[in-house]
């Protein structure tokens, strides 16, 4: 009991320290983005309302956006609003950016989580297979495929899938999150698959899942290949370690040695890279989201950039920053859970 309480206390301390760091980083990030957004030439209020809106409306909006103040003052106003969850109006959708993010982020999360599950399961499975049968044809095949996966941008996969599975074979739906006429589940998490399961709507669940497959796989292949390569390298390395020989020598069955005693120490680099890939996918998915008409946050963000939609740009980047930082904390926790040495070192440094 004493040890458990101790561990919890250490965990709490660790989290607290990371949170403080994160807040600092986010603060810096917000200044960075705010600066990028405001060096833009032109009047954001005029841009927001269009060339033909009456000048008085534009003036009112300028007032409301504090555009007549100095940049630092503008920043404090902006920060105050942002802290209250108000990022202003989006120029593209013409409504509050917060509403947009609430609508588009879950769609992206669903896609990225699905891709993440594929990445993790597929990457580790392929990597393990490759390491287990090192230098055999299985290994060589997986390695060649991994290379192809790593160097091919996701949007190229997306186009190929669409042409093959959407057009030529017509196996899978091409666009959106649900087919026409399929009832939407009640909104709980915003992830349609999860919400459908929660509501017990199996048909909706399957339909949503089918919509996820093409964009999800297109997005997953790159990181899956990366994970497979890393897993293979670590495993091949660890496979020659004495402890594996020792565990085998003790008569522990191969399946247990591979699946447990080799897997766990080999997962640490894989997990670290995975979490970063996961967060990066959230941002890099825009071409995939575009091709499959997926209403996600990264398509929204890139659209905002192309249309110089400042409020949306700043908000999207901040949100991505938050996700990125959260994932980094998760990595530290998971790696700590996997590797007691790191945990012990952290404990000593307290």
């Amino acid at each position, binding site marked *: 009991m004493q040890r458990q309480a101790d561990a919890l206390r250490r965990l709490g301390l660790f989290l607290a320290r990371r949170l403080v760091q994160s807040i600092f980083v986010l603060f810096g990030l917000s200044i960075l983005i705010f600066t990028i957004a405001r060096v833009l*030439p*032109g009047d954001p209020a005029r841009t927001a*309302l*269009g*060339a*033909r*809106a*009456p000048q008085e*409306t534009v003036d*009112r*909006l300028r007032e*409301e956006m504090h555009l007549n103040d100095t940049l630092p003052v503008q920043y404090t106003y902006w920060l105050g609003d942002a802290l209250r969850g108000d990022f202003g109006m989006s120029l*593209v*959708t*013409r*409504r*509050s950016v917060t*509403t*947009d993010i609430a*609508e*588009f982020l879950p769609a992206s999360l669903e896609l990225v989580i699905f891709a993440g599950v594929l990445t993790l399961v597929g990457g580790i*499975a392929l990597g393990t297979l490759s390491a287990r049968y090192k230098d055999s044809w299985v290994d060589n095949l997986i390695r060649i495929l991994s290379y192809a996966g790593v160097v091919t941008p996701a949007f190229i996969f997306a*186009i190929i899938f*669409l*042409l093959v599975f*959407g*057009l030529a074979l*017509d196996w899978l*739906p*091409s*666009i*959106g*999150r649900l*087919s*026409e*006429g*399929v009832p939407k589940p009640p909104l709980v998490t915003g992830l349609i698959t999860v919400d459908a399961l929660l509501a017990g709507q*199996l*048909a909706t*669940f*399957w*339909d949503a*899942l*089918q919509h996820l497959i093409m964009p999800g796989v297109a997005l997953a292949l790159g990181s899956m290949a990366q994970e497979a390569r890393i897993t293979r390298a670590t495993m091949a390395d660890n496979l020659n370690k004495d402890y594996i020989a020792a565990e085998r020598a003790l008569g522990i069955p191969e399946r247990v040695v591979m699946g447990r005693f080799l897997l766990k120490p080999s997962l640490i680099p894989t997990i670290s890279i995975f979490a970063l890939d996961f967060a990066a996918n959230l941002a890099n998915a825009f071409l995939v989201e*575009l*091709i*499959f*008409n997926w*209403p*996600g946050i990264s*398509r*929204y963000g890139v659209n905002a950039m*192309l*249309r*110089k939609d400042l409020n949306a740009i700043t908000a999207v980047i901040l949100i991505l920053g938050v996700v990125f930082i959260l994932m980094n904390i998760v990595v530290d926790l998971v790696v700590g859970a996997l590797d007691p040495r790191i945990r012990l070192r952290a404990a000593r440094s307290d």
Partner: protein
Amino acid sequence: MKALSRILLVFMAALLIGSAVSAQDEARSLRITFSWPNYIDPAVGSDFASSTSLANLYDTLVFPMGDGTVSPWLAESWTISDDGLTYTFTLRQGVMFHDGSELLASDVAYSFTRLKEIGEGYAYLLPAATVAASDDTTVSFTLEQPSGLFLPSLVRLYVVNEDLVRANALADGLYGENGDYGKEWLLTHDAGSGPYMVEEFPLAEYLQMAKYDGWWNAASFVPNAADRVRFIGTTETATVRSLMADGELEITDQWQTNEALTALDGLDGVDIKTFPTMTSFYYMMNNRLAPLDDVHCRRAVAYAFNYQQALALEWPGTQQMVGPVPSTVGGHNPDVTVYTRDLDKAREELAQCQYGADIASYPIDVVWIAEVPAEERFALLFQANMADIGLPVNVISNPWLSVVENTSRQETSSHIVTIYVASDLAEAGLMLQQRYHSSTAPTWQQNEWLLDPDLDARIMDALNTADAGERFAKYAELQAYIADLSPSLFLYDQLQKHAVSSRVEWTPEANSPVMGYQFYLPLIGVNS
């Protein structure tokens, strides 16, 4: 391995069951792709997707006809005062909004005020006026000055349900006591009385509308009118192709390349439908930048360009522009100078131009819009043609927002910008105003920078002429004058092209060319 294959098996089975469950329901469904975004607030939307949605969600006082005139619609009749300033409309009775409440004269007045106060979208088309609803069926507008455009522009006054908008307006907004004027709510909802109503609108994906059986003019629905219509927000070639091939799309957007359309035409049960629009493709020359500030140089350019080859790059049937306005608009003058490729004439004009002797040291930039990649080939053709008269050309692509930015000031406006311009109404005068009146010089609608007060006065005079015949005569004169001035290259009138499933019965050419009315849904039939 075994466990894995078992999971896979279950998964595959589930997919099969899933696809069986999600099979189409019985309703007649019409799906069309559009270029996004789609603003369905009547005071905000003005582009193609928005105009099409608004035309179907809302009703207007008058309705645009295929011949360019307007006919009674919500207004059964109207009178115009002798001074041409006051228009009094008598409304049809018993028109119900989608929520079942009755459409009254006060709703019309509210809609007008709201549109003008917000000032976005089509607000600029409607002249300033005071509006008053004297009883439930009578509404009158008093203009500040006579306008020939007022009646035609009423097709852009979409009547909203005042009570519904007020009930859903946010208190906090830019518009004083009106709060946000319901802008946020109207983004994804409608407050109209039109033949279709918003069923579902996930902003980034599609707009789904359902047929409104309580429409006052329900008798006009063709018998096989769609029960459910979905405007899908994508124009990606591969995506559209896949949807069309799978029978998940009835009509494509107008942005597909000729190559894509040819391929779509090859699909079973898909045809290409074309119809003229009020959009024309201009090469806007900066009339204040050497060497294009000399009319002879401009004419030389106009004679050197190979229009026939340009047309050959477009869909068959596309016609060269005749004069400065699309030939679909009312008041178009077919008897103006039309430039065709004639290198002798071009050289003759060049010789008269003050820069003629030294033309090689006056290179010009041609800027095309990066978002419209089809423009590139015309720019490259232009470059090749100008080489024939010794005029060096740089081909440059710029994103739309930069073009908007650069054309807003004379000193940053390039030699030539290549832009498609659509007339908002079927009036030649409106297009002339949009393109050549000084008020539009600081916008992307005019790169010419004519800034000619005399021309401005003549355009305004024509527009304010209430009598249509007289007005059109003035338009004709103006067109001839501008054609001789050769301020721009008049390339071609755009032909709108859609790949259409043979399940669809659609005759857009019979509808008004006013943007949005080609897709007037009550007139489009869908067979299963």
